[in-house]
């Protein structure tokens, strides 16, 4: 059963990434160079929509709170984020959109996957030194959410209801998606190449 769900949800995710332009490095680089934020608006609206539905569903008892999966916070998260950001802008791909782009026929995305497999292997080998450096040690309690979500396995940074805060932040994401301009860098209409 879980394999069927993996096939259905995975295929829906891959198809959606393709349809919103996220598997296209031109759209990723337009977004990251702040010249056309159409994809940014899409992603912000998606995070907001997902948040409102998930926390709303949890408050109504329709969504199992134990399905939440919160990752640990540590200094390495920020350092790793910086690295990923640099490679993301240079290549126009991140792990999920890279595999989808390769499947949709983009040759450069196969090189991205090859480099990615080598990079992941390099981390596997160097993991003990990161562990010893202390940069993987928990920050602020590690697996924490901003508010305290009733019934969750995770602590909240603030005592405020995590469900309510999740819905409020969800609405904020939607509002930012709406007010964000199409273009922040350069003049004229936001660039869209024929492709």
């Amino acid at each position, binding site marked *: 059963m879980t394999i069927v769900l993996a096939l259905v949800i995975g295929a829906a995710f891959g198809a959606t990434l393709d349809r919103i332009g996220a598997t296209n490095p031109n759209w990723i680089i337009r977004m990251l*160079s702040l010249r056309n934020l159409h994809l940014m608006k899409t992603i912000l609206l998606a995070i907001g929509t997902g948040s409102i539905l998930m926390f709303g569903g949890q408050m109504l008892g329709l969504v199992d709170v134990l399905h939440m999966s919160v990752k640990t916070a540590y200094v390495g998260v920020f350092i790793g984020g910086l690295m990923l950001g640099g490679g993301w802008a240079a290549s126009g791909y991140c792990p999920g959109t890279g595999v989808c782009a390769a499947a949709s026929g983009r040759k450069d995305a196969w090189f991205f996957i090859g480099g990615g497999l080598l990079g992941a292997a390099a981390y596997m080998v160097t993991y003990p030194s990161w562990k010893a450096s202390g940069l993987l040690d928990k920050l602020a309690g590690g697996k924490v959410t901003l508010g305290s979500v009733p019934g969750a396995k995770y602590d909240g940074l603030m005592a405020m209801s995590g469900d309510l805060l999740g819905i409020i932040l969800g609405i904020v994401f939607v509002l930012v998606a709406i007010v964000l301009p199409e273009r922040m860098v350069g003049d004229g209409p936001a*660039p869209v190449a024929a492709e």
Partner: protein
Amino acid sequence: MPLNWKTGGVLLGFVFFLAVLLVKPIGVSTQFVILDAIVADVANPELITEPEAGTYTSTNAYLAKSNGKYAKNAANPLNYSFVFVIAMMIGAFMSAKLRGGIGADERKLPAIWYANYGDTPVARYSVAFVGGFIVLYGARLAGGCTSGHMMSGMMQTSLSGYLFAAGAFAAAVPVALLMYKKEA
């Protein structure tokens, strides 16, 4: 042309919701490690072992961490998270075909590369390869990528998701502006 952001955003938001409603939040980058481990275990069968039925460990400290959960997934590739990534590729392939496929020019070189660096496929493929290396090294150091940390993480209001997004954009915006001065 991609979907309008309103349609696309709501659609993507529903996919995130469906994932957490039925199973768990979406994540991708761990599966690069799993594929590496599957291949490495074929080359060196000593890498992943099963000392007791159902319990796995590895001579590699990273695969052995968290009670050998990565070792276990690599020993049983037909698990939810690995099949999920294969299904993403199938979904993207079918979606691209349904909208008429990607043109030969784009398949060879994205327009933004062509506008900045001309017809230089070897340079582009090298940048994609090095970029992939840095992206996956960084994602594994961070414990997640754009999917797991940024989208799923911020959706759940997790502190780590915000920390990751701050790092990713702090590096991505200047690199994009420096490397791609011409628009396309």
